[in-house]
């Protein structure tokens, strides 16, 4: 059958043409195309790898940041705590100082009062003596006859004055 017997001319032409096609396409089409596709795939892979690395770096940085934040927070807490204790100290100190000062003032006031009292007593004593003298004078003038009685009265009076 004709269909199954290859024509020699067709065979020759087909062989030549096909080999030429393989050569031409291989050299001018497949080589650059496959290279370009391969390069691009490589590029995409690289880019993805880089993105992955960047992501990891980001994660690292984030965790580092968190660490730093935590540290800062701790430090802040510490500082606040210190400040608080310092403040308490100062307040306490101030309180004790104030107390001491107050006590001192009170002492001073007490001493002053004592002094004033003493002065007042001294003055009172003077007044009492003059008053006594007054009384005596009056007694002398009024009841000079009963000397003993008078004397007793004077003494009693003096005693009372002194007790005050």
């Amino acid at each position: 059958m004709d269909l199954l017997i290859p024509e020699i001319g067709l065979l020759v032409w087909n062989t030549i043409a096909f080999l030429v096609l393989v050569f031409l396409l291989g050299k001018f089409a497949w080589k650059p195309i496959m290279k370009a596709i391969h390069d691009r795939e490589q590029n995409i892979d690289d880019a993805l790898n880089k993105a992955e690395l960047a992501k990891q770096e980001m994660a690292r940085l984030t965790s580092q940041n968190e660490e730093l934040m935590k540290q800062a927070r701790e430090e802040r807490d510490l500082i606040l705590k210190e400040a608080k204790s310092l403040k308490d100290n100062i307040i306490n100190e101030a309180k004790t100082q104030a107390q001491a000062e107050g006590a001192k003032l009170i002492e001073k006031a007490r001493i002053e009062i004592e002094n004033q009292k003493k002065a007042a007593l001294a003055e009172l004593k003077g007044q009492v003596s003059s008053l006594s003298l007054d009384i005596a004078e009056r007694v002398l003038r009024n009841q000079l006859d009963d000397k003993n009685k008078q004397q007793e009265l004077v003494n009693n009076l003096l005693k009372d004055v002194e007790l005050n």
Partner: protein
Amino acid sequence: MYYNPVFVSRVKQVIVAFTLFLAFFVSKAQAATPIDSVIADTVVTVENDAQHHEAASHEAKKEEKGFDITSFIFHHISDSHYFTLFGHGEHGIHLHLPIILWTDKGLVTFSSKEFNFNDDGTVAVEKNGQRFAMAHNKIYYANETADAHGSFVSHELNDKGDEVVTNARPLDFSITKNVFSMLLSIVVLVILFTAAARGYKKRNGKAPKGIQSFMEPIILFVRDDIARPNLGHKYTKFMPYLLTVFFFIWFNNMLGLVPFFPGGANVTGNIAMTAVLAACTYLITTFKGNKDYWKHIFWMPGVPVPMKIFLAPLELIGTFTKPIALAIRLFANITAGHILVMSLLCLIFIFNSIAVAPASIFFAVFIGLIEFLVAFIQAFIFTTLSALFIGMAVEEHH
């Protein structure tokens, strides 16, 4: 090896359905020509039927006018020295392709126009003191005198009952329809893919655009689904061959389905083309085959010695049957597709009724669409099997 079983079986189902459809019509019409046989998809049956047809049609011709469907179809799927743009015979417009002959007296070239569309050897062309006649698209040395029918070639019935021309033939290196179509496809492919390659150069590292983006998925398909699974890491070396084979077969399959110029030739449905392609695969497997490959052929490891001796010739024959099967598969599939479409259209002429035309055209278009798939599948299968055979030859056994 990867096939889509659903897909393949569907194609088969459709073919079976059409066989039944045709058988039904033929039995109803009681047509003289057993048309259902032409859709048989094995080469052997095609061959036998064709012989049967030829004999039958010759008788029919003698009796009455009749429409000789077999010779019509075979005329369409076989090679020719004309490329018909449209019309028929002297009333059509044709490309007259050059005839190049290597004769006993050297090279002879002339235009096929000189045969004046004569295909039964009744016109003898004289060149360089030699006379040539064309019969059934083949060129013979013409006899000195014409016989009773006016033919310059002698006919003889061979043992199968076929009429064969007994004249000697010069070596025919003519640019026939197939050669013309193939050269055209090569020009188109080279232009197409160098354009794509330019795109890659111009837009280096960027996303593909235009023709580049159309071709890239297919190129990647060949690389990732054909070359890599079969060839492993060694695929780069064979990519140019596999890509060329794939696109060459696919493009020519598609071109063959185009019913008008520049399509219509049957390049991949011609045994000469598929034989050349299969021979390339065979040569690559043979010359790139490593020690393991040859060892598995001649001295199969892991089996007893008598078995080794028994297997060696089988394996050796296997190396030849593989490429032969490749060639036959592609040839038979594409030829069968062409025959099928032509037969469906010929139903109109067989019934001699325009009423059949809608059904006939509907089914021809349907089969035509399936042929588009077959065009791709056959390119895919040829390339995959080539990759598989090469892969087996270069595989490293550990």
